[in-house]
C-alpha cells in the first residue's frame, strides 16, 4: 500500500480545516516531499504550475491526520488478533496518521529493547506512525517502577500500566514523583481495581436483569479522586484515559479548575453507546470501562463538547473470535475502534453539539499537545500527515469489511456519516477510498 513519495503534490479545491489555528476555509495545500510546503485560501488561485501532481479534493475536508492516543496493537505476542501491519492498515483507513500504542504486549514494553522493536517495525511498515507508551511499572505488575528515564530517552511518549490501574497508592505516588523528575506524563486507566474485580458490565438495572456482576460508576470517580490527590502531592502531569462516567468527569473538572496538570480522553463508545448495547449478552459491547448509563453517556458527550474531555481516542482493543464468542463472563473486554473513530466522533458535529473544528481538535492537536507530539496541525514545514474526508457521506459500519484483523466492533451495523477518502503520511498517499 505505501507509495513512493511524489516530489510535490497540490491538494486543490479543498476545505482546509486546522483546529490548532482555527482555519476553516476553502483553499489548497502543497506538499513537498515529506513536508507541508504551503497552504491557504489563495494558494494556486491562478492555477497549479507544471511539474506538480494535482489532487482535486472536490470541496471535501482536508485536515491534519488524526492522532489516536490509545490503541492496542497486540504485536509482539498476540499477532492472531492484530499486527503492526494490520493495525496500520486499519488506522490509515480511519484517517489516523499517528497512533500511540499501549505497552500490554508480550513481552511487555517495559524495556528499551522491546520499545525499539515496536518502533522500528512500525517505521518499516510505513503506514500510520506508531509511538509507544511504556509500562509505568515493571511487567505491568503495579509494584516496581519501570526504567522511565531510559525508556523516555529511547522514545517512550508517556507511561501507563495500560488496561489496568496502578492499584497501590504508594506505588502510584512514587510513579508520579519519579515521572515528574523527568517531566514525563503518567496515563492511568481510572478504575478502582477492587471494585471492578469480577465485574462484567455497568452496575445497574441492566446488569441486575441480565444477572451479570456489575462495576459501579463510582469505581472511576474513586480512583480519579485518589490520583488527583496524589498529583497534588507530587506535581506530576497526569492523564486519565477513557473517562466514562458523569461522576468521574466532575472530578476531572474540579481538578482542572484547581489548576492541576490533569487531562483526559474518552472513546466513541462512551458518548455514542450506553449499557443497553450489551442487550442480549453481546460480547462486542463488553468494554473496559463498561458502557455506562444513558445519563453517563450524555455527560460524556457534554464534557467532550465543553472541553473537560481534551481528546477522543479510539481505544482500539482488537479481540479475535475465540476471545469474544464465549459466554459473556468469559469473553475478553474491548472493541475495535480505528476504522470508526472519525465517523462516530463526527456524530457530535452532525447532532449539533460541537463545531467541526472542535471535534477535529479532540482528534488532532489536542492529543498531540498532551503527548508533546509534533503532529495534528497544518503547519509549513511540518510532516505532511493529512486526511481528506467527506463529512456528510453516509455509510453503515460493516465490521467484516474492516482492514483490521479483528472485527469486534461495538458499532457493527450502525449507520454513520463521514467517509475517509484519502490518508497521507509524510507526503505519501497510504490510503485511498475504494
Amino acid at each position, binding site marked *: 500500500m505505501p507509495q513512493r513519495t511524489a516530489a510535490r503534490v497540490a491538494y486543490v479545491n479543498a476545505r482546509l480545516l486546522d483546529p490548532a489555528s482555527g482555519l476553516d476555509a476553502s483553499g489548497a495545500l502543497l506538499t513537498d516531499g515529506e513536508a507541508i510546503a504551503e497552504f491557504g485560501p489563495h494558494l494556486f488561485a491562478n492555477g497549479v504550475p507544471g511539474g506538480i501532481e494535482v489532487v482535486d479534493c472536490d470541496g471535501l475536508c482536508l485536515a491534519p491526520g488524526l492522532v489516536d492516543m490509545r490503541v492496542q496493537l497486540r504485536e509482539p505476542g498476540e499477532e492472531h488478533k492484530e499486527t503492526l501491519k494490520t493495525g496500520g492498515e486499519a488506522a490509515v483507513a480511519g484517517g489516523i496518521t499517528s497512533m500511540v500504542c499501549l505497552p500490554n504486549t508480550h513481552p511487555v514494553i517495559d524495556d528499551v529493547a522491546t520499545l525499539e522493536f515496536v518502533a522500528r517495525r512500525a517505521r518499516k511498515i510505513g503506514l500510520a506512525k506508531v509511538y509507544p507508551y511504556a509500562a509505568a511499572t515493571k511487567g505491568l505488575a503495579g509494584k*516496581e*517502577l519501570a526504567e522511565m*528515564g531510559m525508556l523516555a530517552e529511547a522514545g517512550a511518549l508517556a507511561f501507563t500500566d495500560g488496561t489496568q490501574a496502578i492499584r497501590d497508592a504508594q506505588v502510584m505516588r512514587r510513579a508520579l514523583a*519519579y515521572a515528574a523528575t523527568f517531566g514525563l506524563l503518567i496515563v492511568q486507566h481510572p478504575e478502582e481495581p477492587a471494585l471492578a474485580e469480577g465485574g462484567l458490565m455497568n452496575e445497574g438495572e441492566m446488569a441486575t436483569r441480565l444477572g451479570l456482576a456489575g462495576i459501579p460508576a463510582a469505581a472511576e470517580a474513586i480512583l480519579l479522586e485518589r490520583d488527583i490527590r496524589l498529583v497534588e502531592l507530587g506535581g506530576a502531569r497526569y492523564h486519565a484515559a477513557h473517562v466514562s462516567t458523569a461522576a468521574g468527569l466532575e472530578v476531572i473538572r474540579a481538578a482542572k479548575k484547581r489548576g492541576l496538570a490533569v487531562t483526559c480522553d474518552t472513546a466513541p463508545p462512551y458518548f455514542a453507546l450506553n449499557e443497553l448495547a450489551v442487550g442480549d449478552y453481546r460480547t462486542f459491547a463488553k468494554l473496559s470501562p463498561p458502557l455506562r448509563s444513558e445519563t453517563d453517556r450524555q455527560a460524556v458527550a457534554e464534557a467532550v463538547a465543553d472541553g473537560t474531555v481534551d481528546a477522543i481516542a479510539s481505544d482500539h482493543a482488537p479481540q479475535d473470535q475465540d476471545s469474544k464468542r464465549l459466554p459473556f463472563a468469559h469473553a475478553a473486554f474491548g472493541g475495535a475502534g480505528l476504522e470508526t473513530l472519525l465517523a462516530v466522533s463526527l456524530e457530535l458535529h452532525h447532532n449539533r453539539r460541537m463545531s467541526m473544528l472542535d471535534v477535529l481538535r479532540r482528534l488532532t492537536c489536542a492529543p498531540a499537545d498532551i503527548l508533546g507530539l509534533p503532529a495534528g496541525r497544518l503547519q509549513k514545514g511540518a510532516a505532511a500527515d493529512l486526511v481528506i474526508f467527506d463529512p456528510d457521506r453516509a455509510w453503515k459500519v460493516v465490521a467484516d469489511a474492516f482492514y483490521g484483523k479483528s472485527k469486534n466492533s461495538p458499532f457493527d451495523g450502525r449507520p454513520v456519516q463521514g467517509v475517509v477518502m484519502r490518508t497521507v503520511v509524510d507526503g505519501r498517499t497510504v490510503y485511498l477510498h475504494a
Partner: protein
Amino acid sequence: MTQSVFPHRHLLGIQGLTPQHITMLLDLADGYVEQNRAADKKKALLRGRTVINLFYESSTRTRTSFELAGKRLGADVINMQVSASSVNKGETLIDTAMTLTAMHPDVLVVRHSDSGAVQLLSQKVDCAVINAGDGSHEHPTQALLDALTIRRRKGRLSGLLVAICGDVLHSRVARSNIHLLNIMGAQVRVVAPRTLVPATMSRLGVEVFHDMREGLKGCDIIMMLRVQNERMRGNFIPSIREYFHFFGLDYEKLGQAKADALIMHPGPMNRGVEIDSDLADDYERSVIREQVEMGVAVRMACLEVLARNYTGGTA
C-alpha cells in the same frame, strides 16, 4: 590552645549551633590532624574519663573513628553493639540509658536507627551525649568532618557552591550538612530524583534539582550520598543502571562542575551505583579518604569540648 567555650552539654545535631561554635570545633580539630600524623598520637587530656560507644545500628567506620578519637585523648573507651544484647532481651532505650548512667560514663556516643532516639536518651542520662547518627535526622560529626575537609582544601566554607546528590530523603548526612553549610554561608543544592527528595526540602534553605547536569553546574563541592540497595528495587528507583545513568557521578557529569571541584562521599560507597569506580579513586578530585582522616580529628575535638563541660562525679 584555645580554651573551649562550647555552651552545649550534648552534641545532638548541627541545628542550633552558631558559626562561632562550628569554627571553634573545626579549629580544635585542625590541631589534632597534625597530632594524628605524628608517631606519638596519644595525649592524656581525657585520662580517667570513660567514653561509651553505644551503637544500635551496625557501623564500622564511625565507631572505629570515635574509639580511636577517645583513645588518642587518653580516655577509656568501651564499645557496645546493642543490637546484639539488650534490645534482644527486650530492654527499652530508657532502661538501657539508666543502666549505663549507673556506670558513670563521661561521654555516650550513640547511634540509633530512629530519628530522635538519641535526643530522648540524652534527656535521661547525666553525662554528655554525642549523636553518631539518628535515623534520617542528623549526623553532626559527619558534617563537621566534611566541613574540615573542605576548609583545609578550599580555605573557607562561605561562598562555596555545594551540591549534595542522591538519597536526600533518607539521609541524616544530607540534613546535617545542609544545616552546617547554610550556617557557614555556603550555598547548597540538592540533586535527586523526586522520589528521593521531599517536596518541602527547599524550606531547609537549599535549591532542589532533578537534573544532575543542571545541579552540578559551577559547583565547588560535590557530595555524593549512598543509596541503599533496598531502595533500588523499583520502589524509589527503577534500577541501578537507570540510577547510575541519570544520577551517578561520572567524568561526563563532573564536567559541569568547576574544574577544581572536590568529590566527597560519607562512605561506604557503592561503586558503579552512585559513583564511577575510577572517579572514586581519582586522587586529583576525590577527597573520600581524607574525609576519613578528618573524622578522627573532628571527633577528638567534640569529645574534648564535651568532656570539659561535663565535670562528672562529685569532684
